[in-house]
Structure formats: C-alpha cells, structure tokens
C-alpha cells in the first residue's frame, strides 16, 4: 500500500498508463483538461502516443484507427464533447473495436456550465450515436474507485471488443483524495487481437474492419450477434453496491459522487432513528436491475437522487417493477445537493413520489 494525495483527473491519466495505454487522442474541454495535460507529458516520457486532435470528432476517429491497429486506446472529454464523439462511438461498437472513453460530466443542456453534474446519464447509457448498440458505462464514487475501474475498463473493452465509458462528474475530476495507485485489480484473460490491422505480412489473409452492411440479412445477423454479446456483458459485468439494506424503511438509489453525499445523509437519518439503505449502481449499463429484487419488504419507498432532473430514475422505475413507491430528488445546473437536503427528501418522501 502506497497512498498518495492526487487529483482525480491526474489519477485517471496515471491509471490509464498503468493499464497499458498505448495511445491517447483528445481535445480540450473543462473540467477534464488535466487528463490530456498530464498525458501529454507522461505518454511522451513513456514513448507512447499522445495527439491533441483538432476536434472531439477527429479524436474519436483517431481512437477508431488506433483501436483497429490493435492498440489500447483512450479519449476523454466532457458533455458537449462527448456529444460530438457519438458518431465515432457508434462506429467503434458497430465494428467491434475496444476503447475507453472517459466522460467527466458538466452541466447542460447546450454549452451549459462547467460545474459538476450527472445530466449525461442518458447520453452515456442510451447513447447519441445511431443504431442498436451498447456501451459499458462504469460510474465511480471516489478517486480510488476511478483508478480501479480505469484498469478494469481496458480489460472489459478488450474482452468484449466494445467501447467502455468511465462516467465521472466534475467533482471526481477536480477533487484531491488519497489513492493507492498500485492496488491490485482482478486479472482478466484477454484474447490476442487477431482482427488487428497490422498488414498482411503479419497475419493470415486480409483483415478488414467495417460497420457497413447493405445486405439486410447480413446486417440483422450482425445485430443479433451484438445482442448476444451484450447479453454476456449483462450477465458478467453488472456491478453494484448495496449498503445498510437489512430492515430498511427507505432505500436511496444514487451513483457517483451523489452516493457519497447519501452516505452522510444515511448517518444523519440513523441519528433520527430512520433506517435507510443505499443501492449504488457501479455499472450504469448494464444496469443492476436484480439488486432491486433484494429490497426488503420493510421498505416504504425508494428515493432516487441525482444531479439531474431525473434520468437514472427511468432505470429505477423499470427495475422496481411497481413494487415500491418511487420518489425523486435532484439538483441541476451544477448545484450539488447537501446531505441535509437528502434527509429532508426522505422525511418528506410523500412530496417526492413520482410513481406510487
């Protein structure tokens, strides 16, 4: 154990290098600028590739090219910039290429603001790119977890040949915390990249990477194959944490830094004699629907809290299957809820109910 105090964005950069990042392509946008800034130096020192692209669009397409060449590749951006990357993410998913996309969310819509937000849950989990595709979305609540998930993300991307997104908010990116960069993560088996474009002198036959399929019979088959893969991801990569659930009177569902604020609220509620549990989805896609089957009968309601106007709320409503009343409390525009606001929302749960 060797803990150091580190800023979230710098930890993301170092974790990517530790995970064997071969190439980074990005474009400046607040609040993630420290990632490319650090990497421009570290990647150079390590003799690896760093390119500041002319746009987010170009950056994700450089990712597409370098991923096709069989390398570990990453880009990072924020809200508006992630919107511009969606075409490329769809291509990566369609052509089944691995990459890691770090999204440090800021407030929207439009140019919005640069303060922390979770308003890009839909953008991350539903995607803005075209076609039937999925992106694995992992949402850390601390800098340590960000580092651990970064390392796992590259393996998950390689195993399934699919983009993986680390969905952080401006708080994770900008705050400093103690972190153990050497904390071991589960080693996964990754197959050799036989699909990689390395020239026909280095492999049998010709390797071609495309997402074009003008023949509907072929294209439906491809979509079915993708769906089978996504089902495997749902089965093996769903991740969540349940906390304080036994005999819970209420259950709060929150992810990312909001989950941390909820933990403080749970302590305050305990002092008031109210027993509240927490479901913290770590994978936002695949969403941990099964966790909701484990909510005890003592529960009088589920409160969803987000730094948005209610986006993960949709997944909670799907997962709840009408068992418990569902309430919502959210802040937007870069406003971060305090624990006392969440305590109030539980105390006045009836006013927060969106589906009873």
């Amino acid at each position, binding site marked *: 154990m060797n803990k150091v105090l580190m800023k979230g964005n710098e930890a993301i950069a170092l974790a990517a290098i530790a995970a064997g990042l*071969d*190439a980074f*392509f990005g474009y400046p946008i607040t609040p993630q600028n420290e990632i490319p800034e650090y990497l421009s130096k570290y990647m150079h020192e390590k003799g690896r*590739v760093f*390119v500041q*692209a*002319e*746009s987010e*669009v*170009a*950056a994700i*397409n*450089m*990712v*597409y*090219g*370098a*991923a*096709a*060449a069989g*390398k570990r*590749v990453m880009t990072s951006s924020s809200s508006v910039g992630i919107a511009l990357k969606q*075409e*490329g993410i769809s*291509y990566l998913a369609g*052509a089944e290429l691995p990459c890691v996309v770090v999204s440090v969310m800021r407030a929207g819509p439009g140019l919005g603001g640069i303060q922390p937000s979770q308003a890009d849950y839909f953008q991350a989990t539903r995607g803005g790119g075209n076609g039937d595709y999925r992106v694995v979305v992992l949402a850390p609540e601390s800098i340590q977890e960000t580092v651990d998930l970064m390392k796992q993300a590259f393996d998950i991307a390689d195993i399934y040949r699919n983009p993986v997104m680390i969905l952080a908010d401006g708080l994770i990116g900008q705050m400093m915390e103690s972190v153990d960069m050497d904390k071991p993560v589960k080693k996964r088996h990754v197959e050799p990249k036989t699909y990689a*474009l*390395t*020239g*026909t*002198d*280095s492999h049998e036959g*010709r*390797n*071609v*990477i*495309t*997402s*074009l399929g003008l023949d509907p019979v072929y294209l439906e088959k491809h979509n079915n194959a993708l769906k089978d893969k996504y089902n495997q991801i749902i089965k093996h990569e769903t991740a969540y944490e349940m906390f304080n659930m036994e005999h819970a009177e209420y259950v709060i569902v929150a992810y990312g830094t909001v989950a941390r604020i909820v933990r403080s609220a749970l302590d305050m509620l305990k002092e008031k004699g109210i027993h509240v549990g927490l479901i913290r989805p770590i994978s936002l896609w695949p969403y941990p629907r099964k966790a909701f089957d484990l909510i005890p009968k003592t529960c009088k309601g589920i409160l969803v809290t987000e730094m948005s106007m209610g986006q993960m709320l949709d997944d909670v409503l799907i997962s709840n299957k009408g068992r418990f009343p569902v309430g919502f409390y959210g802040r937007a525009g870069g406003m971060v809820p305090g624990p006392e606001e969440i305590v109030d929302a539980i105390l006045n749960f009836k006013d927060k109910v969106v589906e009873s």
Partner: protein
Amino acid sequence: MIKYERSQGLTDVHTHYCPGCTHGMLHKLVAEVLEELGVLGKTIGVASVGCSVFAYEYFETDFIQAPHGRACAVATGIKRVSPDRVVFTYQGDGDLGSIGIAESIHAANRGENITVILANNATYGMTGGQMAPTSLVGQVTTTSQLGRNVAEHGSPLKISEIFAQINGAAYVERVAMTDISNIRKTKKAIKKAFTYQLEGKGFSLIEVISTCPINWGMKPREALDWAKENMIPIYPLGVYKDVMKND
C-alpha cells in the same frame, strides 16, 4: 509476348463502379504502385464514405472503412501507433473537401506521414449526383438544378492549392484520368507520394481529376472530354508542393 495480368494488389472481384467511371482504373494504379514498391504486406488502407466506401473489397491489403470525412483522422490513429506501416486514404471530393476538410487539413498540418488519394469528380456520386464543394460554376446537379452559382453556393474549392500552402504537406500534385498520357502521370504521382511516405517525408496528397458519367448524364467518352475541357482549366494539373524542390 506481352501478357496483361491483374495487379497482385487487387482482389479477384468485380467492382461495383458504374460503366465508364474512373475509380476502377485509379484503384488499379494504386494497387500497381503498392505492388511495385513491394509494400502490399505492410499497407493499411482507409476507405471513406462515398463511391469508394467499398474500396476495402478491392485492395489486397488490410483495410478499414472510415466515417464520412474522417479518413485522415482514422489514418492518423493507425499511423501513429504503427509508424512502420504504409497508410493511405482513398477519398472523394465531398468526403475530403466538405465534411472532412478539418480532419484533412489538420492531418496535413501535423505532417502525418500518410498518403491521401483524392478522386475529384465534382459531384457526390454515391448519393446520386448532388452538388459538391468542387462542382463547377454553372454545373447542374440534383441540388443545384439551375446550375451552381457563386452568389448562392460559393466557388469551386481548390483542394491542391489549399494543401500546398500547409507546412506539413510534403507532396501535393493534381493529375487527371482523362487520357493515357495523364493516366501515366497519375501513376507516377501516386508512386512519388508513397515513396515520400516510405522515406518519412510527411503528408502527401494526390488529387485526381476523375469522371462520373452516370451522374453527369454523359457517355464515358463525353465525360472524359468534359473533364478535360471544363475541369482542368479550373483545376490546373501539376505539382503544387514538393518539399524536395522547395528546400
């Protein structure tokens, strides 16, 4: 005895190109050059969106299909992580000159050591003959049915001239597929561009004046004459940039 054989650089399939279109011949020239330079085994091609979207079916090399306009960004990604490979894009004028102008200019400006083969046929072929940034003044297309006019649509974009003044561009030449002598010059230009890449000189672009008989509404022979008489005066042929000559 002279025996005509298909280049080793081409796959053994029929292309989807329309009768009289010059893409087929241009593919052959690129394939022959790669074969003659002995680099087929280490070449990675980047197909664009447009008529050349299926280029990956026709070249006997590794290939990737890029999003519309992004071929130079995709090529950048490949080349940066595999600098010992030969990387080229094959793009049309709409792909490079319109939707992909930013990616193309910045790849050139970074001096990416890649080769760009640009087929300029003054129209969007794949989508059915719409106006391109390179369409000539007065040219009737499906989206300029009264003819392109400068006040409304701007002037034809002179791609070679633009790229020639970018520092990172090592070699820029405009050639034509209009007759045998020009086709020979085209092959020579392509060979020079790939040779520059092999020598690590940087970005090269060969703009090839091409024809689109179907969308131009002409017979193949008429299309060749039209390109010669109307396109070449607006898009003069020649070497626009050669780092070896400018030094």
